[in-house]
């Protein structure tokens, strides 16, 4: 195991666990937590918790307002986090990074602000069958509100986007194409740059749901070429309640505000209002100040590990787990088998055992996995499954977590009489 750990880029997940106070507390079974549900939300390293506590404890006041030291201090931390995040995702300017609560709010911002201004009857929105509900329901609502139509690109049997289907639907001239870089339900890594080129050639703008990719692999907006990108802080070691939308400056400048009120204005009279510049035009009211500082700390933590290394680490664990799981009788693994196209997320079903029951047995052993439809019910429908069990890896996981996963599956099979 020591030799395997020395593979290029593979991290020492066991050692990194010491950075995360959550792992100090054992599971009720007495064993350490084997946390395999980072695709839902990740534990926080001490650096992030400290940044939040320190902001509230010693640097807190409202931002962008007070002409006094504490407010300038808080504003510096808030805007410093924006700068750090912009650099992390390769945004041309930090002014293009809008703080929101999460990726869901980021996508809703685009749907409400850009969508209701630019779409009408006869227009086409293209999403995919692979999407999380966060990148699906807002487009349904937008279509219903504007009279635009909404179509979905299909998925292949092995969990890839059907690019032939994509091409034929793009030929109908959609105005917007929305898809995810990594599927939370299947683990598929989509070819973002290629799809974006196809979409742009067809005259469409691209909205990328990067909630499952930014935490786990290098993401560079300039390389991807997309027009909007949505992410959540809580999946990338940051606090909950903070996420971001990145958008091209020219698009953001032309868009009306999403929510209105304080701090997003430059001048208000009883007759009317002038909007502030981006990003503040889209940040009405007092934002999540300490949480933004925490997200900045999460970015610095990930940068110190190196995103190439994070990706290599998860790929290593994926390959080991995929190979071992594949040998289990009665198991069905979803998504592409090629590790180039598969993130550290493994969705599977086992004959004769419902995923909920599996997750309960796993929990009895201190192994935390997600069981359900993963907020992607159309994906479940596509594969005629009510639900799947999903194990997802992050920096604090290691080969011992793969062993714990296998052990839990064998315990489940024994209990349900399929040993």
């Amino acid at each position, binding site marked *: 195991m020591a030799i395997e750990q020395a593979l290029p880029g593979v991290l020492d997940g066991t050692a990194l666990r010491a950075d995360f106070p959550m792992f100090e507390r*054992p599971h009720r079974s007495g064993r350490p937590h084997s946390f395999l549900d980072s695709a839902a939300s990740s534990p926080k390293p001490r650096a992030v918790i400290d940044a939040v506590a320190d902001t509230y404890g010693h640097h807190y006041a409202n931002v962008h307002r007070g002409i006094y030291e504490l407010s300038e201090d808080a504003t510096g931390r808030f805007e410093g986090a924006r700068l750090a995040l912009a650099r992390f995702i390769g945004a041309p300017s930090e002014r293009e990074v809008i703080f929101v609560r999460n990726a869901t709010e980021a996508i809703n911002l685009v749907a409400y602000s850009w969508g209701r201004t630019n779409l009408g009857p006869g227009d086409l929105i293209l999403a995919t069958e692979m999407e999380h509900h966060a990148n699906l329901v807002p487009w349904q609502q937008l279509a219903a509100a504007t009279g635009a139509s909404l179509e979905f690109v299909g998925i292949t049997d092995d969990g890839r986007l059907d690019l032939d289907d994509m091409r034929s639907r793009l030929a109908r001239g959609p105005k917007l194409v929305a898809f995810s870089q990594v599927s939370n339900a299947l683990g598929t890594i989509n070819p973002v740059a290629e799809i974006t080129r196809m979409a742009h050639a067809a005259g469409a703008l691209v909205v990328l749901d990067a909630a499952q990719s930014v935490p786990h692999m290098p993401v560079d907006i300039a390389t991807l070429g997309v027009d909007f990108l949505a992410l959540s802080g809580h999946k990338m070691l940051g606090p909950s309640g903070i996420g971001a939308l990145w958008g091209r400056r020219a698009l953001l400048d032309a868009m009306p505000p999403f929510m209105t009120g304080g701090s997003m204005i430059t001048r208000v009279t009883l007759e009317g209002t002038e909007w502030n510049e981006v990003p503040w035009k889209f940040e009405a009211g007092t934002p999540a100040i300490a949480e933004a500082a925490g997200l900045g700390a999460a970015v610095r933590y990930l940068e110190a590990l190196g995103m190439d290394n994070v990706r290599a680490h998860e790929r290593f664990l994926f390959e080991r787990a995929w190979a071992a799981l594949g040998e289990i009788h009665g198991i069905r693994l979803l998504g592409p088998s090629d590790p180039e196209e598969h993130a550290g997320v493994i969705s599977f079903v086992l004959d004769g055992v419902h995923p909920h*029951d599996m997750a*309960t*047995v796993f*929990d009895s052993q201190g192994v935390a996995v997600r069981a359900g439809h993963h907020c992607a019910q159309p994906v479940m429908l596509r594969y005629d499954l*009510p639900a799947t069990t999903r194990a997802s890896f992050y920096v604090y996981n290691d080969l011992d977590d793969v062993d714990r996963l296998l052990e839990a599956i064998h315990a489940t099979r024994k209990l*349900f009489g399929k040993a």
Partner: protein
Amino acid sequence: MDNLYRDFILEHYRNPHNQGVLDPHDLHFADSNPTCGDEMSMTIRLDEAKERVAEVAFDGRGCAISQASASILTDELTGLTVQELRDLDPRGVVENLGVPIGPARLKCALLSYKVLQGAVIGGEARWPEEADMLTDAYEGGASP
């Protein structure tokens, strides 16, 4: 957990009672568990006076808890009046499972009850308040 999957539960899961669809039937409803998407339907045939349950069946696929709960619940319904179906205590449905049900699995245990209420009162049926649903046997999963 080993308590949760007692042989009694697994036996009902493997060989559920009253599974199927009654045709014709007098009452019917289908619903799903919002946490996992599992779907369940129930069909009920009443006696000739249309007063009491003559036969009941449930259909659908789901976890051991939801299937065992439906199997156990439907065993107890024959002979009850429609009003008695309406007045069933959801606490009793959970308690009849005889195993500790934690908050994460409560909706699995209550899906059959929810579908039954739907069959009796229609789409107005609501999930019971969860706060007083946790059985006394459940002592909480968290370590102190």
